[in-house]
């Protein structure tokens, strides 16, 4: 009587070629995956600095400087407007002061995330990940929306969400969280307004 059925793991392999094939695939995929894992780490490290330098020079510096210049100029004008040297009529000065305050408020509301251009390559790559469904590989750095995930950027985004929440607790009848966020176009408009108000005070500013 045969006590060992066909499915028993103790049984001799009924299909040796099949086993051989699966062992072969396992070995090759193990080697490939091991290489892939080490390759991805090495590749990432080899490119981080290049990416950092490009992001710093092409986007971070010009964008930050643009906003900084406007904010600094707005503060300078704000401190200058009380100067006794200004001979403009009081109503002109009062109007200029209101305009500078409004510009300052607008500038202080602008965040990096409002004006930073999209990283199209990152978004395209995130879409590839979604299509390939390579979740089992040790690949990360992008979330499902294509945004780059790293601790600092994530922390910043969380902080901004918190700020939005806090402002919605205020007494303002129209919480700022309900208003659309400013964008690059608003920076341009604010810049024109700032140069205009400086002109009314007799200053031709060059903020390039």
């Amino acid at each position, binding site marked *: 009587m045969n006590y060992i059925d066909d499915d028993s793991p103790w049984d001799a392999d009924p299909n040796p070629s099949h086993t051989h094939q699966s062992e072969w695939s396992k070995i090759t995929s193990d080697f490939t995956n091991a290489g892939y894992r080490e390759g991805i780490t090495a*590749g990432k490290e080899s490119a981080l600095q290049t*990416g*950092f330098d490009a992001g710093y020079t092409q986007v971070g510096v010009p964008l930050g400087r643009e906003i900084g210049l406007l904010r600094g100029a707005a503060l300078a004008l704000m401190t200058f407007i009380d100067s006794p040297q200004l001979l403009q009529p009081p109503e002109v000065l009062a109007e200029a002061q209101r305009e500078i305050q409004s510009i300052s408020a607008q500038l202080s509301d602008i965040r990096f995330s409002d004006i930073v251009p999209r990283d199209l*390559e990152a978004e395209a790559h995130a879409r590839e990940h979604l299509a390939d469904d390579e979740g089992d590989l040790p690949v990360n750095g992008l979330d499902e929306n294509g945004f780059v995930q790293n*601790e600092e950027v994530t922390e*910043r985004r969380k902080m901004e969400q918190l700020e939005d929440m806090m402002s919605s607790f205020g007494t303002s009848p129209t919480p700022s969280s309900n208003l659309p966020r400013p964008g690059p176009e608003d920076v341009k408009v604010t810049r024109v307004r700032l140069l205009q108000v400086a002109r009314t005070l007799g200053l031709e*500013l060059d903020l390039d």
Partner: protein
Amino acid sequence: MDVDIESLVHLEQSYAVTRRSLLSLMLRSRFYDEGYKDGFAHGRIHGLIEGRALGRTKGYEMFEELGFYEGFSLTWKKIYESTGGSEDRAIHNIRVLLDTIARFPRTNPSSSRTSLESDPSAEVDIPKLFRQIRARYKALCAMLGVRPSLRATGSDFQEDADGGESMQLDSGSKPKKVWEVDSVGKRTAGPQQLSF
């Protein structure tokens, strides 16, 4: 002829083992290399993306502050020019401040490392430069009778209580001249930690 069957069997077995080992090595090399190549290409894309995101953030943070000092100084310079003001000390301070800000690198020095190696005098001490710029700005504000604050226009930045760096500048004894990615040997710190 006296043939030792046992030794023949042994020889054949060791030959088979050697052949298997060789085959295994070749396989390992071939499939590992293929995987490594694909992984490296994929990793480069991720490295570029993550590096770019960090470079954008850091560049923005630093120049949001530096641009603020620059815009403030430029405007006051213009005010003095247009009103014929003769505040010599303030004008002098503005010029020095603008010159110092202009020395701040707008490209990461690491990308021109070869030129730095050939000319060490071209190296920039970032934390020191930042300290000088902040001190100059404070001095200018004192001369103008303005309260030195980045918050006047709602900037996200503020200096530490002790007047130190608000950004993660390396305060080690050896000043860093470039923004460097952690080397492979220091991987525990995480590849995201680009140092300043």
